[in-house]
C-alpha cells in the first residue's frame, strides 16, 4: 500500500482526527452494539484473541462473552446459526477470517440467507452481516488470498459492500448492521493499518452511492476496495503527464450506483474498471457492461478492465505481485485510451 494516509473523496475535510481502518471498523461495531442490544458478534477467535488482524480488540472486554462469541472452526455451522438468530429477532455480525473460507458456508449464505425473505413472501428477514477479507499480496498463497466478492454480487438477496477508506468502512458497516438484509462486507486485509479522517460524530453511508475519490476529466478509473489506492497512484502518475483521471469508487457492488458511474463515463468518455477479483466473469465485467449499455454513444474508446489474473494466487512474492493490477498498468491503459501511448 503506497498510501498510508488518505484524505480524498467525501471524507476529505480539515481538522478531523485520523484513525486506521481497523479502528474505524471496531468503532462502528462498538457504537452499534451500544445502540442496539440485538447486535452481537460471532466467529473464530473474535473474543479474547480479538481477530488475527486485531480488528476486534477490546470488544469482548466491553460487551462480554455473551455478545462476542468465539466459535469452533465451523463456518457452515456458525453462519447457519447466525442466519437462524437473524430470522428470530437478533442482528448478528459474523466474522469469516479469510474470504476464502466463505466457500465452507456457501449453502448458508447463498441458499439460506439470500433466499429466506423471498421464499417466505417477505414474511421472514435476515438482518445479517458477514464481515470478511479479500485481497492478495500478503504472501498467504492460494487459500488465503482470494477476492470472492463477485460470487456474492451474483446472488439476488445479498448486498455487497467494499469499503476502501476508514471513513467508508465505518459508515458502510453501520449501514450494513442496520440493514434488514444479509450483507457481505469485504475488507482488504492490507488496508487495516491505512489511516484516514473519521469524524467523531455519528454518521452512516447509504448503500448504492458511489464516491468520487478524485475528480478528473480525461479518463474515469472505476476502482473498488484496495484498487482505489492503485487508481489514485495511477492518477498521480497521469497528472504529471497532463491526463486528469477521475477515480470513482462504487463502495457497494450491490446495490450498484449505476447513475454516478455512467455520469462519469459520459463526462470523460473513457473508462477503466479495476477490481481485485478475478477478471474473468467478474465485477469489472458487470460494471463495464453497464457503462457500455448506458453510455455507449458518449464513449471515445471501449471500456477497459483490469482485475486479478485468472490463476490461483501464488505464494512466491515475485509471482504474487504479478497477479494484481498495478498503478503503472492502469496508467499505461489510460495512456492508450487517451491516445498518448
Amino acid at each position, binding site marked *: 500500500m503506497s498510501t498510508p494516509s488518505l484524505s480524498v473523496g467525501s471524507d476529505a475535510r480539515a481538522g478531523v482526527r485520523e484513525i486506521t481502518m481497523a479502528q474505524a471498523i471496531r468503532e462502528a461495531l462498538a457504537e452499534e452494539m451500544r445502540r442496539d442490544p440485538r447486535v*452481537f458478534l460471532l466467529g473464530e477467535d473474535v473474543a479474547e484473541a480479538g481477530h488475527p488482524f486485531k480488528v476486534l480488540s477490546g470488544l469482548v472486554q466491553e460487551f462480554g462473552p*455473551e455478545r462476542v*462469541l468465539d*466459535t*469452533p472452526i*465451523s463456518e*457452515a*455451522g*456458525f*453462519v*447457519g*446459526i*447466525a*442466519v*437462524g*438468530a*437473524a*430470522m*428470530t*429477532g*437478533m442482528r*448478528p455480525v459474523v466474522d469469516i477470517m479469510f474470504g476464502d473460507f466463505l466457500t465452507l458456508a456457501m*449453502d*448458508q449464505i447463498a*441458499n*439460506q440467507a439470500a433466499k*429466506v*425473505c*423471498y*421464499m*417466505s*413472501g*417477505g*414474511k*421472514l*428477514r*435476515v*438482518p445479517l452481516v458477514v464481515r470478511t477479507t479479500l485481497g492478495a499480496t500478503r504472501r498467504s498463497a492460494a487459500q488465503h488470498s482470494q477476492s470472492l466478492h463477485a460470487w456474492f454480487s451474483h446472488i*439476488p*438477496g445479498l*448486498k455487497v459492500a467494499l469499503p476502501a477508506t476508514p471513513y467508508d468502512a465505518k459508515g458502510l458497516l453501520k449501514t450494513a448492521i442496520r440493514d*434488514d*438484509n444479509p450483507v457481505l462486507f469485504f475488507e482488504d486485509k492490507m488496508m487495516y493499518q491505512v489511516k484516514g479522517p473519521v469524524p467523531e460524530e455519528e454518521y452512516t453511508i447509504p448503500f448504492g452511492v458511489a464516491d468520487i475519490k478524485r475528480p478528473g476529466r480525461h479518463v474515469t478509473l472505476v476502482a473498488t476496495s484496495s484498487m482505489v489506492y492503485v487508481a489514485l497512484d495511477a492518477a498521480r502518475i497521469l497528472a504529471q503527464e497532463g491526463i486528469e483521471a477521475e477515480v470513482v469508487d462504487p463502495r457497494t457492488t450491490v446495490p450498484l450506483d449505476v447513475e454516478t458511474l455512467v455520469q462519469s463515463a459520459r463526462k470523460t468518455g473513457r473508462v477503466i474498471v479495476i477490481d481485485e477479483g478475478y477478471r474473468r466473469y467478474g465485477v469489472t465485467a458487470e460494471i463495464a457492461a453497464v457503462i457500455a449499455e448506458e453510455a455507449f454513444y458518449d464513449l471515445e474508446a471501449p471500456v477497459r478492465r483490469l482485475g486479478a489474473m485468472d490463476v490461483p494466487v501464488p505464494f512466491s512474492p515475485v509471482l504474487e505481485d504479478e497477479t494484481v493490477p498495478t498503478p503503472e498498468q492502469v496508467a499505461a491503459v489510460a495512456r492508450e485510451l487517451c491516445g498518448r501511448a
Partner: protein
Amino acid sequence: MYELMAKIRAFEEQVNELYVTRRMPGLAHLYVGEEAVAVGVCQALRREDYITSTHRGHGHCLAKGARVDRMFCELLGKAEGYCRGKGGSMHIADPDSGNLGANAIVGGSAGIAAGAALSAKMRGTDQVAVCFFGEGALGQGIVYEAMNMAALWKLPVIYVCENNLYNEYTHYRETTAGDILARPRAFGIPAEEVDGQDVRQVLAAARRAVARARRGEGASFLLCNTYRFYGHHVGDVDRSYYRSKEEEEWWKRERDPLRILRSWMVQAGLAEEAEFERIEQAVREEVLAGVAYALQAPYPDPSEVSQHVYA
C-alpha cells in the same frame, strides 16, 4: 392428536390427487406414514416455539398450526399462499405459528434451528427450537457442526431425526456408518430412540426434551423410526428397485400411526369407532373445502416477481 394426524393424512392424499391429475406444479414429497412424528413433537410445543422443517414438510407445517386452505394456496402458487406462492411445497414458512420454513437443502436448517435457539436464549425467552430432518441429513457436515455448538452453548434446540429408512432411493444402511445415536452422544447431547409410529411415545419423548431445553439444560436428539408410505416424491411410482411391495404393505398394515393410536384408544375405552369416523369425515371436508378454495384463488400479480428479494 388423532384429528391432526388424520388431517395430515387427508391433506397429503389430496396433494397426491392434485399431482396425479396434473393440477399442481413442481415437486411434492408426501408425509403419509410419518404423521405421528410431527404431531407428537409439535404437541409438546407452544405456538411461539420454533420449528424448522424439511422438503417433506407439509406434516410439520400443519402440526405446528398452519391452515389447510392457505397451504393449498401455496402449493398451487396462489397469492394467498403462506409465501405468496414464492416458496411452494418445499418452502412453506409461517412465522405466526413459529414455523421458520421448510428447507429443500437436506440438513440445511440444522444451523438455523440452533440459531433460533441461541436467539431465544439471548433474548431471555424460554422458547425452544425443533429441527426436523431426515436420516439422509446425517451425511451432512453442518448437522454435526451445529450440534457441536448447540452442546457447547447449551442451546434449547431439539434435533428430531425422522428415519424413514430411505435417503431418497437408497437404504440408509448403505449410506450411514455406525450407530446413529452415538453421534449426538459424542457431543454430550442426550439422545433417545422412539417408535415414530406411536404418537404417544413421540409425545412423551418430546416433552422430556422440551422440558430439558426450557430448564436451560440444552440440546436433545430424538431418533424417530418411521416409514414413508409413498415414494420419495409423488413421481416415484416404481419403487421395486429399492424396496419391496411386501415391505410397504407390512408397514401400512402393521405400523400405520393412525391405526396404532386408534386401536389403543378403543382398547383403553377412551373412544369409540364412530368418533374416529366423525373426525375423519370432518378433516376430509376441511381438506376438500381448502383445496376447492385454493383452486379458485387468484395467482399473484406478475409484478410481484421482483418483490421481497430484499426486505
